[in-house]
Every structure is written in structure tokens, then in C-alpha cells.
């Protein structure tokens, strides 16, 4: 697989707290890469840096070997928040948003929104007010909104943290379907270890702002390189 994102010597500080330090990582085209770690490890901050919401104090991030203009690369990626922000509008208008700001033709928008809602299991709900959806439906609608314009990179921040098992399963199926049917690279931040086992290709373990190990899923779960990784995977309190 080709290299898509290269992060070198990344550091992020909030006040006096160093929330990320010396992060070196390469994310490959088309893979599902999962950051796992406890709350406060720096997973969300890392995703926010990748989506340009935070500026690192040190280090570089290159997309396909270049450091492009923010708006251009941003339009090729999408970030799904743990709790999605829903616009006070219909499901259609919410899902169509990313297409409309790109100036896509109305007929194409209608087709793409329909397709995206089919993928997330919300067909025919275009006219419903998005703020009347249940938590699981809202997250799936936000997923449709995030994938409707075929982003090259999909950043998922704890996408199933507040959901019941049935909705967790649906979201995981959507993630796998997108990976299989499109060339989208998916970067997932979670503390749900079984979920990582079910859907990730490669895994990075973040502890106290430090990326202590990057390995294949099989490697992380069968032969972790770092004793702290093994302790975290086994559910021992190491933080």
C-alpha cells in the first residue's frame, strides 16, 4: 500500500501540558488505522491536528509527500465527531451539506445523498428533521454526511462511544463496507479494544501523549513489542 500521511516528530502542548510528544507515524492508502489508548492519551488531539483544528508546536505532517493548503486537503477528508453536531435542518440538507459547499450539481447531490443514506441504513429519511433522530440514527446520518463526497481520508473520533450494541454493529459494518467498496483511508480513535480487533488493519497505542507502539492488528494482539502495550490490551491499569 502507498503512503498517504506521514507524521514526523509531532508535538502538541496545551498550557504546560505536553499532550503529544515525538509522534512519528505513517498511514497507508486504503487502510483502517486505529489509535487506541485511554481517555486523555491524545487520540482526539491527534485527529484534530490531522484535520487542521489544532496547530502542533513542533513536527510536520505531509499528505502524499506534500504539505498542501489547508482548504484543499480538508476538502479531501472528513472528521466524524464522537457526538455529531446536527444542523437544524432536514436529513437531506445535513447530508447534502458537504456537496453543496463544493458546488455540486443538484441532481448529482440528490443521487449521492440517497446512496449515502442507503449505505448507513437510513433510506427514505431525507425529509425528516435531523434533530428528531435517535442517537444511533443521528450518528449514522453524520456518517452519511461524512462519506457523501467520497473523502480520501475519513477520521473517526470514538464513533460508537455513546451507542448501544446494535448501533455499534451497524457503524462497524458501515466502516468495513466503505473500506471494501471505496479507496477511503480510515483513521479511527477509540478506547474500544474489541472494536479494534474487529475492524482495524493496523494499530497505534497512545499512552500519555506518546505513541508507544505501531503494529499490525495481529501483531498488537498476539506479539506486542512493548510491555505497556500488552498491559493495556490485557486491561491492566497502567495509567
Amino acid at each position, binding site marked *: 500500500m502507498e503512503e498517504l500521511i506521514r507524521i514526523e516528530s509531532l508535538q502538541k502542548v496545551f498550557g504546560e501540558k505536553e499532550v503529544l510528544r515525538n509522534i512519528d507515524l505513517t498511514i497507508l492508502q486504503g487502510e483502517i488505522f486505529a489509535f487506541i489508548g485511554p481517555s486523555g492519551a491524545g487520540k482526539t488531539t491527534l485527529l484534530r491536528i490531522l484535520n487542521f483544528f489544532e496547530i502542533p508546536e513542533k513536527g510536520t505532517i505531509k499528505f502524499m509527500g506534500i504539505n498542501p493548503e489547508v482548504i484543499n486537503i*480538508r476538502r479531501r477528508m472528513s472528521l466524524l465527531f464522537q457526538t455529531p*453536531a446536527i444542523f437544524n435542518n432536514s436529513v437531506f440538507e445535513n447530508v447534502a451539506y458537504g456537496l453543496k*459547499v463544493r458546488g455540486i450539481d443538484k441532481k448529482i447531490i440528490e443521487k449521492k445523498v440517497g446512496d449515502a443514506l442507503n449505505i448507513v441504513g437510513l433510506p427514505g429519511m431525507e425529509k425528516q428533521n435531523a434533530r428528531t433522530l435517535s442517537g444511533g440514527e443521528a450518528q449514522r446520518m453524520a456518517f452519511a454526511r461524512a462519506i457523501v463526497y467520497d473523502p480520501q481520508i475519513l477520521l473517526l473520533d470514538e464513533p460508537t462511544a455513546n451507542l448501544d450494541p446494535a448501533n455499534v454493529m451497524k457503524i462497524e459494518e458501515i466502516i468495513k463496507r466503505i473500506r471494501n467498496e471505496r479507496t477511503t483511508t480510515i483513521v479511527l480513535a477509540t478506547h474500544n479494544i474489541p472494536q479494534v480487533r474487529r475492524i482495524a488493519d493496523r494499530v497505534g497505542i497512545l499512552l500519555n501523549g506518546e505513541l508507544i507502539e505501531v503494529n499490525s492488528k495481529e501483531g498488537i494482539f498476539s506479539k506486542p513489542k512493548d510491555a505497556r502495550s500488552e498491559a493495556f490490551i490485557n486491561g491492566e491499569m497502567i495509567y
Partner: protein
Amino acid sequence: MSSVDFLIQGIIKALELIFSINPYILSITGVSIKVSGTATILSTLTAIPLAFAISFMHFRGKQGLITLVNTGMGLPPVFVGLFVFLMIVPVGPLGFLNIVYTREAMILAQYILITPIITGISLSAIKAVPRSIIETVHTLGGTQQDAVIETLKEARFGIITAVLAGLGRALAEVGAILIVGGNIARTGSVGGIGEGLSETRTLTTAITSETSKGDISTSIALGIILICLVLGVNILANFFQRRE
């Protein structure tokens, strides 16, 4: 005659004046609505862009501007009246405008009074829009302009409430417009009451003058109209607050 009978008779006469569509009362109501409405429109055109600029832009003196807006929300109307009067008198810096005792002067005074109110309440409504809405716009590929539009949509009911609060304040205001407008009515009695048709006389300033002359029924009639107008504005504001 007891004070209650006096009041009831005053109300009956006032209702007769209202329902007979008395030209004096009609002209006063018209001036009130025109002056306050114009001031509200001009203030809205200033206040809403100002509130968005404060929310979305980083500039020197931003905190000072917020303090100025907050202070302006509690400005004493008589002070504003005095300030505007001193500005527009012939020897004042704006004396060349020649607007002393005109509706334009009243609009200017009300503009100064209500612009901070509309700005302050709009600012609160904009700040109440979750940060995640703006971040979602950006992550979906939207520009800063898209973020402003989406924030405007989210905060629209709060902003409408701000405008209505400004209008309500303008309609009920008396001190400033009394100083700069002069409470002038054209001479000549119309319909047997008052002093003619209003030039710069509004519902509030007319109530003060009619009461001081002892014409209680006219004062009550003007008061009923004023209360109805302010009540109507507040009912609208409550409606939009509930929608929010």
C-alpha cells in the same frame, strides 16, 4: 367621584378615542412607529455584522469593544439624549446637520441607545451556537463564510429576539427623544383634543405632556396603544424564544 370611577371613566373615554381613530392619536402612534422602526432597522444593520465580527474575527481592542457594548446596554436614556443634543446643536460638532428637534435626531438618539442592546443579545445568541457546528462546517469542506452563514441560521431566533428587544426598548423610551425631539405637535386642535398633528411627539412623550396638562383620558388612550405595541413585540419575542 372616587379615583376608581375616575380611572374607569378615563379608560372608557380612551377607548372611544382609540376606536374613533382620532387623528391626533393616530399621528403620534405613526411617529412612534416610524422613529422606533427606523432606529431599529439602522441598529440591526450595524449590530448584527458587529456581533459576527466580534465572534469570528481576531483584532486589537476586541475585549474593549465587548466592554463598550456591555456598558452601552445599560446607558441612561437621558444621558444619551443630552449627549446627542450637545452634538447636534448649531454650535456642536454635528450642528451642520441641522436636525435639532427633528425625527432624525430622535432616530439618532434611539440608534445609540439600542445598537448595544441588539449587539449584546445577538452576541450571546451567536456564542450559544455550539463550537461543534462551526467545526463540522469546516470538516465538511466549508469556508469561514459558510461557518458564518450556518451560525446565522442556528442563532436566528436569538437574533430576532435581540432585534425585538431593541424595538421594544425604542418604543418605550422617553428621556432621550424628549430632549432631542422636543415633543412637538403642529398647532391647532384636531378632533377636539391635543395640539394638532405630531411632528416629533411620540406615545411616550405625549403621555408625559398630556398627563401634565390633566388630560387623563388621552394619556390612558396613548398608554393603552403603547402597552399593546410593546406587548405585541414581547409576544413575538417570546414566540421566537420558544422556537429557539
